């Protein structure tokens, strides 16, 4: 199955794109998705410990099980204000 992944802030520079599609196996977790993305976008790995993850408009942890149609967003620490 395929999920769309969006990048925000300087994650776009690290990946070179604002979003991408990634094919994962049924029942894959965000952790597995991240593993695949780190293979495609090695510069993202430097941010491994400070990457925030959302599915839709809610934060999710790495054990979240992906569903078809999920829109995943990855971004660095937020800086509003």
């Amino acid at each position, binding site marked *: 199955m395929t999920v769309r992944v*969006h990048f*925000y*802030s*300087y994650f776009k520079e690290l990946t070179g794109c604002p979003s991408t599609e990634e094919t994962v196996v049924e029942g894959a977790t965000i952790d597995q998705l991240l593993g695949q993305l780190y293979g495609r976008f090695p510069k993202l790995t430097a941010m491994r410990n400070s990457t*925030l993850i*959302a599915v*839709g*408009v*809610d*934060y999710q942890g790495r054990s979240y099980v992906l569903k078809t149609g999920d829109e995943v*967003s990855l*971004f*660095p620490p*937020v*800086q*509003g*204000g």
Partner: protein
Amino acid sequence: MTTELILTTDPIDEAALIARRRASAGMGAAISFSGIVRGKEGADAISAIDYEAFRPMVEHQFKLLFAEAGQRWPVVESIRLVHRVGVVKVGEPSLWVEVVTPHRSEAFAACQWLIDEMKRIVPIWKKPLL
């Protein structure tokens, strides 16, 4: 509790916002906080900050924060928050928050909590412009 959230590329008109303030007869405190773009980012002089927002998530996360503020301080009557997106020049406010409560202690506490939480979870990012 009433809440209002505005994400805008326009300058924040604080005077107009103040003029629109509504407070019932039980309210004794209104705090408004303006976060202004400073002329330096670390050691570098800058001219502006470009704010990027993941809008639908910003709106959702603020909704969650407003609801939690209402649970933590049930006396809060009104929260209004305006955040600029796009380029904000040095000296201009990028953020304006107002909290209206019966007494000042809750207004200060709720306003500070809201800004702290915003900076923790609301997906907005800054890019300094030289």
